[in-house]
């Protein structure tokens, strides 16, 4: 009854004055509310949107009942702000959600990066271990080599020691000189090796095998008795006998030469039997590596 009366009276008013235009505040409030409902507010700020709806309804009711009076304007003013609050709240919640997502991705990426770094470190460590193993191997190889070298040196020294028992060994500028007495190698006037000479030359060959050298020179020497040319020929033949035997014992033929020097390089007095005996000799010169 009351509402009908109001509506009728409003219709009468409309008839009299045309449409009553809503205040600008109400127009703005309606627009703001509509925009809020179309945005994320319904989903992210439902409570605020509901408050905005109630505020707008109140303003609409006041406008309907009282027309454009100051309370209506104020209610519309408030309703617009409530709608804007719903919108701002929804935007805030959305931004918070985005930030949370980015934070999670950040942490994931960090962990991912950490894993990667760990993997890289592992790789590096493995590489380091490999290098360590390689070093260890090298060390082993080196020590094996050292042992081998020491062994070779020991053998060579032993060979030299046993050589020293059968021959005179001395260091000269031209190299190591092994001097063998002619008496133990050859019969007088002969150049074929005596059986005992072979034993001695075996020792020499053994000692030479473990030595480093550039070349070997076998020199035949005689005393000064007899014709010089005969002595030279004999000394050469004897040197060659020795050379041939040493080659047969493993000394490379291209590294060993023979020469006959006769009595040109006497080392002792030819006037005494002892001196002549010392002069009859074969010298094996081991020319050192540079």
């Amino acid at each position, binding site marked *: 009854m*009351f509402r009908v*009366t*109001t509506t009728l*009276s409003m219709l009468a008013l409309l008839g009299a004055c045309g449409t009553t235009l809503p205040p600008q505040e109400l127009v703005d409030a309606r627009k703001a509310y509509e925009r809020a409902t179309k945005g994320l507010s319904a989903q992210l700020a439902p409570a605020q949107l509901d408050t905005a709806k109630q505020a707008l309804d109140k303003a609409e009711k006041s406008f309907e009942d009282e027309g454009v009076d*100051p*309370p209506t304007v*104020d209610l519309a*003013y*408030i309703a617009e*702000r*409530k709608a*804007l*609050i719903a919108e*701002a*709240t929804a*935007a*805030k*919640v959305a*931004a*918070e959600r*985005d*930030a949370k997502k*980015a*934070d999670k*991705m*950040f942490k994931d*990426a*960090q962990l*991912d*990066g950490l894993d*990667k770094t760990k993997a890289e470190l592992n790789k590096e460590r493995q590489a380091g271990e490999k290098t360590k193993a390689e070093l260890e191997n090298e060390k082993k190889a080196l020590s094996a080599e050292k042992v081998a070298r020491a062994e070779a040196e020991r053998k060579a020294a032993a060979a030299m020691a046993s050589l020293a028992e059968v021959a005179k060994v001395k260091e000269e500028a031209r190299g190591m000189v092994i001097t063998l007495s002619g008496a133990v190698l050859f019969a007088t006037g002969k150049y074929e090796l005596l059986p005992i000479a072979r034993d001695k030359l075996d020792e020499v060959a053994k000692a030479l095998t473990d030595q480093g050298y550039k070349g070997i020179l076998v020199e035949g020497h005689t005393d000064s008795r007899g014709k010089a040319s005969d002595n030279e020929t004999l000394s050469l033949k004897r040197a060659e006998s020795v050379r041939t035997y040493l080659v047969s014992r493993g000394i490379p033929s291209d590294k060993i030469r023979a020469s006959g020097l006769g009595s040109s390089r006497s080392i002792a007095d030819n006037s005494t039997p002892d001196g002549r005996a010392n002069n009859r000799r074969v010298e094996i010169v081991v020319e050192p590596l540079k």
Partner: protein
Amino acid sequence: MVRKLVLRMLWVGLVAVSAAACGGAAVPQEALTAAQASVKGAEVGGANEDPKAQLHLKLANEQIEKAKKAIEDGDNEVAARLVDRAQADADLALALAQQAKSLREAKDADEQLGKLKKKLNQ
């Protein structure tokens, strides 16, 4: 219509009676205090750092001043309406400040993520 008019007149009469009894409509002291607290809250919430929020903060402050003046003038009804408007503006100022802050933080987080990704891909 007649009935409504009578009702309205009755209400006005009541107000007049109470005004006569207590010195006009009640001073909206509680609402004013609440609005002032909301303005402070909006300021603390960073309303001065966002232009839109700052605008509504200004409106809220202006309306609070007007409300105080209305109270001085004894116009408590106008004061109450001004306080309500101020309250709505203060609330909006805070909501806008919080929105701006959240957007800023989301942008920062996104930038940090971008930087980290770039660093990791090097």
